């Protein structure tokens, strides 16, 4: 039952993509397991449509169904998919081939895997044109033009490169160039920026937006990052368990969600700069139903705080809210009853005693005869009970710094690590048990961090007995206590990792790190492998554990929302150097180092576009051959000629506890950054800086 009238036939023809009541099952071991349960949406030409939802909700399946690119065991059990009026589900193989050739294109998550590693990039792009019937010479010229179109600065040079010689951002641009070769009516983007760094992601998103305006293609975007969807999409569909539960204008949906699931999803994000001391994040209790599970009338009922009897018996209507917005819920009028968690009484923790201090820590790797400095003279202090957030793009040395603290990597001679007034042995294995239990780690991927052959109880017991020296019954008691503080039940403890959900696995991993009452826990992207609703629960737990145990966290994350929520202080790294460090509040308020400024402006925001936008040009330089002077000068939008490329600025204290490594005086930075925010302009790297970068590249071919 739907309240929306079926649209007249002519709009159905006009839509670039129209999915009607699509139902699809995967046959697993002979049993069909429903994944899509009646998905209906429409994308008009020139419109961009985003599908959001937690992993397993069916958003990728929907996208792949639209281009008829499904695994063998997928069976479409109902509905139609119309692309420009043609039913995709009824095409034969040759029609599908023609359809893919002329009407749709797809951009995948991993551009490295989408390009053929043995063929140069140019010929690969040219092939996309040759397929369409262009002669070789013409196809080559088209390829160069296509590379230019995706804003590759030097298309002739890139043409001659192999994929592995290009950065991820450049690879993705080349893939987009290929996707646009046929001038498709529908462009499907599946997590196109997930593997990319924030600054690169921002420029790829910019590119997608401008190309879309230029080509008038319809875009279907799949992304788990709601900020990315908000940046790109006009309209958005929120999926849950194979149904679209809410649909509408992207800005409107994100600002005033009209379905309990959307509301829960948005509230579980750390937004609007909230911090752990202010209030816990809202969570959505429970987890997504298993694929193929029998579901009650409303798919969300088991996790919905508003659910009543009617939700189990009557399929909720797709209520038309006007303005193209719909919500599949019986209780839209009662959404107001859902309140955010109450504010915590907790204060921002004052600085405790100095726990760990790093002085002059460098780490140089030897790679095929070259010295590659991953850390350069890092000085850093950590205090009791504080969270130090470590941010920076990939290759900036964040993980190496963490590994050095943990004793997995040994720092170069001359670097010192001190824990509570005594020198730490650089090698983990040679540290006394007391030091081992003091510094523990939570890994990014709980899948890999837990031994799949062990039960949760075995994993925890071993860590407890090894780190605390407890024996016999005492071990069991300690494990129970740990489990209780991580809200793991006894029954969870007897399961093996593969029987636990992602969030539960990460809780076991956190419990393991806390087995021996650690002083410092290094958390390397602790929530990036998890869905947002689960992420909220984990962040709340980490925050609770910290205030109970006065543990210090070294938090590595690319998600500035997460960093802002948990971190008391923030250190920004670039090419193995600390560029800025300071109280979290100060760093987010500014003035900032230009690199931090760029990072902050690059993050796609669920709350709309940032005020000032900075687009860094060029590539992150190779650490093996760092730029002269200030290492950031080759990409810096505030580059000062004859200064930045000559001398390296010192790390200066610009206000109490806030240090920065920049030549520009802090007052000048404050003025410039305030001006940029006001004028709402896009700042890019000036040509002089790019020239400097090119000069370095020329010195070191390859």
């Amino acid at each position, binding site marked *: 039952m739907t309240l929306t009238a079926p649209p007249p036939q002519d709009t159905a023809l006009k839509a670039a993509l129209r999915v009607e009541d699509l139902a699809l099952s995967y046959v697993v071991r002979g049993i069909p397991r429903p994944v899509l349960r009646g998905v209906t949406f429409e994308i008009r030409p020139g419109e961009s449509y985003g599908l959001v939802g937690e992993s397993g909700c069916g958003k990728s399946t929907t996208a792949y169904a639209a281009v008829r690119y499904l695994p063998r065991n997928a069976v479409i059990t109902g509905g139609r998919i119309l692309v420009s009026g043609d039913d995709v589900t009824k095409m034969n193989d040759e029609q599908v081939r023609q359809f893919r050739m002329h009407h749709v294109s797809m951009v995948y998550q991993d551009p490295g895997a989408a390009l053929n590693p043995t063929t140069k990039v140019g010929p690969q792009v040219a092939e996309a044109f040759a397929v369409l019937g262009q002669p070789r010479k013409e196809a080559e010229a088209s390829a160069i033009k296509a590379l230019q179109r995706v804003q590759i600065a030097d298309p002739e040079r890139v043409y001659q490169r192999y994929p592995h010689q290009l950065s991820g951002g450049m690879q993705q641009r080349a893939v987009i160039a290929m996707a646009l070769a046929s001038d498709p009516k529908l462009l499907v983007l599946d997590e196109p920026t997930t593997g990319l760094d924030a600054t690169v992601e921002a420029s790829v998103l910019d590119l997608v937006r401008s190309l879309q305006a230029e080509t008038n293609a319809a875009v279907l975007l799949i992304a788990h990052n709601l900020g990315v969807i908000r940046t790109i999409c006009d309209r958005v569909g929120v999926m849950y368990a194979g149904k679209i539960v809410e649909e509408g204008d992207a800005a409107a949906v994100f600002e005033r969600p009209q379905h309990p699931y959307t509301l829960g999803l948005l509230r579980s994000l750390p937004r609007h700069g909230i911090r752990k001391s202010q209030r816990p994040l809202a969570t959505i209790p429970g987890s997504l139903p298993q694929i193929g599970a029998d579901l009650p009338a409303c798919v969300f009922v088991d996790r919905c705080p508003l659910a009543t009897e009617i939700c189990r018996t009557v399929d909720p209507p797709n209520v038309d809210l006007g303005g193209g917005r719909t919500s599949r819920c019986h209780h839209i009028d009662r959404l107001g009853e859902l309140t955010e968690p109450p504010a915590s009484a907790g204060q921002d923790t004052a600085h405790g005693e100095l726990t760990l201090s790093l002085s002059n820590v460098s780490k140089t790797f030897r790679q095929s005869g070259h010295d590659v400095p991953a850390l350069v003279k890092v000085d850093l202090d950590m205090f009791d009970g504080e969270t130090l957030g470590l941010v920076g793009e990939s290759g900036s040395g964040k993980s190496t710094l963490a590994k050095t603290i943990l004793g997995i990597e040994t720092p170069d001679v001359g670097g010192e690590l001190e824990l509570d007034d005594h020198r730490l042995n650089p090698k983990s294995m040679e540290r006394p048990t007391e030091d081992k*239990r003091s510094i523990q780690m939570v890994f990014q991927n709980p899948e890999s961090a837990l031994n799949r052959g062990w039960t949760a109880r075995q994993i925890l017991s071993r860590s407890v007995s090894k780190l605390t020296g407890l024996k016999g019954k005492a071990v069991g008691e300690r494990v129970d206590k740990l489990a209780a503080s991580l*809200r793991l039940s006894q029954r969870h403890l007897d399961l093996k990792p593969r029987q636990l959900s992602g969030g539960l696995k990460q809780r076991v991993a956190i419990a393991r790190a806390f087995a021996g009452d650690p002083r410092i826990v290094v958390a390397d992207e602790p929530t990036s492998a998890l869905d947002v609703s689960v992420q909220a629960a984990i962040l709340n737990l980490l925050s609770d554990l910290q205030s109970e145990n006065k543990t210090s966290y070294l938090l590595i994350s690319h998600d500035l929302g997460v960093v802002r929520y948990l971190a008391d202080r923030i250190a920004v790294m670039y090419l193995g150097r600390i560029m800025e460090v300071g109280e979290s509040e100060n760093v987010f308020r500014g003035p900032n180092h230009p690199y931090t400024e760029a990072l902050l402006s690059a993050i796609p925001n669920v709350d709309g576009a940032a005020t000032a936008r900075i687009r860094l040009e060029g590539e992150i330089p190779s650490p093996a051959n760092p730029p002269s002077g200030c290492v950031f000068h080759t990409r810096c939008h505030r580059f000062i000629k004859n200064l930045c490329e000559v001398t390296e600025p010192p790390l200066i204290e610009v206000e109490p506890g806030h240090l920065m490594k920049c030549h520009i005086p802090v007052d000048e930075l404050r003025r410039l950054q305030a001006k940029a925010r006001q004028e709402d302009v896009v700042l890019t790297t000036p040509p002089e800086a790019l020239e400097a970068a090119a000069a370095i590249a020329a010195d070191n071919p390859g």
Partner: protein
Amino acid sequence: MVESTAPSPSPLPTPVPATGSGAMSERARARRELILLLLRRRAFLIGVVVLVIWVVCAVLGERITPYDPFNAFFLPGHQPPSPAHLFGTDRLGRDVLSRVMVGSRDVLIVAPLAALLGVGVGTLLGLVMGYYRGIVDDILSRVVEAFLALPVILVALLTLVVLGSSSVVVVFVVGVLFAPIVARTVRSAVLSERQLDYVTAAKLRGETGLFILSREIFPNVLGPTVVEMTVRFGYAIFTVATLSFLGVGLQPPSPDWGLTVSQEYANMIAGIWWPTLFPALAIASTVIAINLIADSLQSVLNE
């Protein structure tokens, strides 16, 4: 502690598919599904049926053979197949069917033992090479490669000639020659396993290399090891039969298939094919059966 008093939407434990008492049944179900998957493969079923037939023959031996496989001279030699002697008789007038049936016994004892020895030594080597890397891996890898370069049959032949042939020596020689191949397979499995973070976590709590290898990594490379075991078993049967054929394996009057073939194949020219063909088919069917099982096992474990 930032805990709110009211029933706040604080993180609740998310439900898991299995209930507490269902934990065991979940595991049992996984195992049952694995077996069901195997049983749905025709190749696996054929392999098992053929292998079971030979095992039954080996175990029951003389009790189910139509004639005494060792008792000669009650018939003229080289009788062609007939209703009385389905597979004919050999040069000494012994029933070929009876001898083929009993002939599985020796090879089905020697070959699995050799495979077990090879997989055991190879796994140990592979674990050490894959985990410690560096100089240990470099040295052992070169030794392993040197062994791999040697033709198995030739080395086995020479060793058996020097040490004298007995079942124990055959097991030992074949086992040792198989170990390097197994070592390489296990090594690569360990290499990908040691990259995983649980190994780092174990190091961070100060576990010894021996513990990490035996308790953390080994259980997780058991799958490839089991597959390797089955594959090696097939090869071992073939190798043992070959050695017997060459006269350095099992000795007369054993009705061993390889040995029988070697004693009878010269008569093929005279048109007496049955004492050679049937033992040869027996070898082939066993090896193929085991390979069918190994293939099915591998693809099911990879699914």
